């Protein structure tokens, strides 16, 4: 094992001995592994019928937790959309910015039930 490998420890340390030197993180994109939903008290729920696919929630979400998914959707009035906006509930922190910004009030903040 090279000295560098020794210094880099384990990806998911369990004890002092596994820690990378100075807590250096050598795994790029490691924040993807981190879920940030634990502190959410309200969750945004998108009403797909009301949503006009304006993308503003996607723009405003500070955590990149709004996903634009290639999934067709037909509304109750027969309007067809090529994409659907969904929430990544692993990374949504429940701040409600999306609900506030949605011009047609298609997003409702629903209390999290434990």
């Amino acid at each position, binding site marked *: 094992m090279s000295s560098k490998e020794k210094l880099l420890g384990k990806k998911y340390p369990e004890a002092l001995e596994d*820690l990378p030197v100075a807590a250096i*993180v050598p795994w790029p994109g490691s924040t993807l592994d981190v879920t940030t939903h634990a502190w959410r008290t309200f969750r945004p729920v998108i009403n797909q019928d009301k949503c006009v696919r304006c993308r503003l929630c996607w723009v405003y979400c500070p955590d990149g937790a709004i996903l634009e998914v290639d999934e067709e959707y037909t509304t109750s009035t027969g309007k067809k959309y090529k994409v659907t906006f969904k929430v990544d509930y692993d990374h949504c922190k429940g701040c409600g910015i999306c609900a506030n910004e949605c011009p047609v009030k298609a997003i409702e903040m629903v209390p999290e039930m434990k």
Partner: protein
Amino acid sequence: MALAQETKPKEVPEKKEKKRIAATGADAAAYAVRDVDVDVVAVYPITPQAPIAENIAQMIADGEIDAELIHVESEHSAMSAVVAAAATGARAFTATSSQGLELMHEVLYIASGLRQPVVMALATRALSAPINIWNDYADAMGMRDTGWIMIFSENVQEVYDNLIQAFRIAEHPDVLLPVVVTLDGYILSHTTEPLEPMSREEALSFAPKRPRGYRPVLDPDEPVTIGVLGAPNWYQEVKVQQALAMRESRRVIEETGKEFGRIFGREYGFIEPYMMDDAEVAIVTLGATSSLVKAAVNRLREQGVKAGMVKIRVFRPFPAEELAKALENVNAVGVLDRAVSFGGAVEGPLFMEVATSLALRGIVKPMVSFIHGLGGRDIFVKDVMEMYQKLLEAAKTGKSVTRTLFYGVKSRRGHVV
């Protein structure tokens, strides 16, 4: 350039004689930095460190060192720049003094916390207020808990030798901690003494640049994150890891000092005992002050007094074990501080370390804490001889003096208060 010329006459036969030159401590520091082929230097000049910054800037301008000199607007930036440079794998150096070190203070912890092997020269100087540009150890003592390895130099040669060793120690994969080497402001930084520098080849073979990639560094091809958030669930472990590295560094510092002695004939340990074999009383000191205390010891020996001295060379990690061993047979121990720990159990910061080292090993002796030489106040051999008298008294009565004695004071109560 104000650097000294070689004094060896040309016609001396090729005897593989050692090169001996005249140099100030500031010259010596710059030569050491040149000889280990440093990559990045960020310095902000401050008295009495300024000639180090000037010399290095000159050498870089003259092409003597192939290094990047970063002109920064403050010491806070100087330290930030060398930490960042070290994080890319570069060999990085800075130098400072007094208030400049205070301005670096925030980043000192970051250098050690991020385990970046930065090397710094500190021309020791008193702290304001009042403004004072002369020597004492107030600045050095202020950084004792910042996680830096701290090596004190007694003379110009030691400034050079300690700096060469500092690079090897700091960059060792079992250490990866910043190292500061002190030189007493003016007393060493501006005073010319004989110096035996080594050749650049020798310096680089003793403190070789390690191949890139032996430690994690910033590299676009292999990204890493340096400087993450350490929440309560891991911060403590990172700090303990750092404390363990400081303990581990003892082995590397010792090996480095021995190896240096084997190759260059000047061996360095954690401490330097002087006339300690049969000493009855001893004073513990730091830095250039040690030479003065040695002179007092010599004078006392002529008078038949069995005086000794122990110089602390490595102040962090503190050589508690070595010191206890050196002092176990004397009848009284004095500590000469040139800094004040205001409101401390005793006011001498070095004293506290010495007393703890002895007490934890069950060595109980009469002890006296002396403070003298603040802000460049001259210490005279006769003053130190007086301190030894105080120790002889303490040895006779078996009692420590429970408060610090300030020597050399202009007071109506006398010069000791």
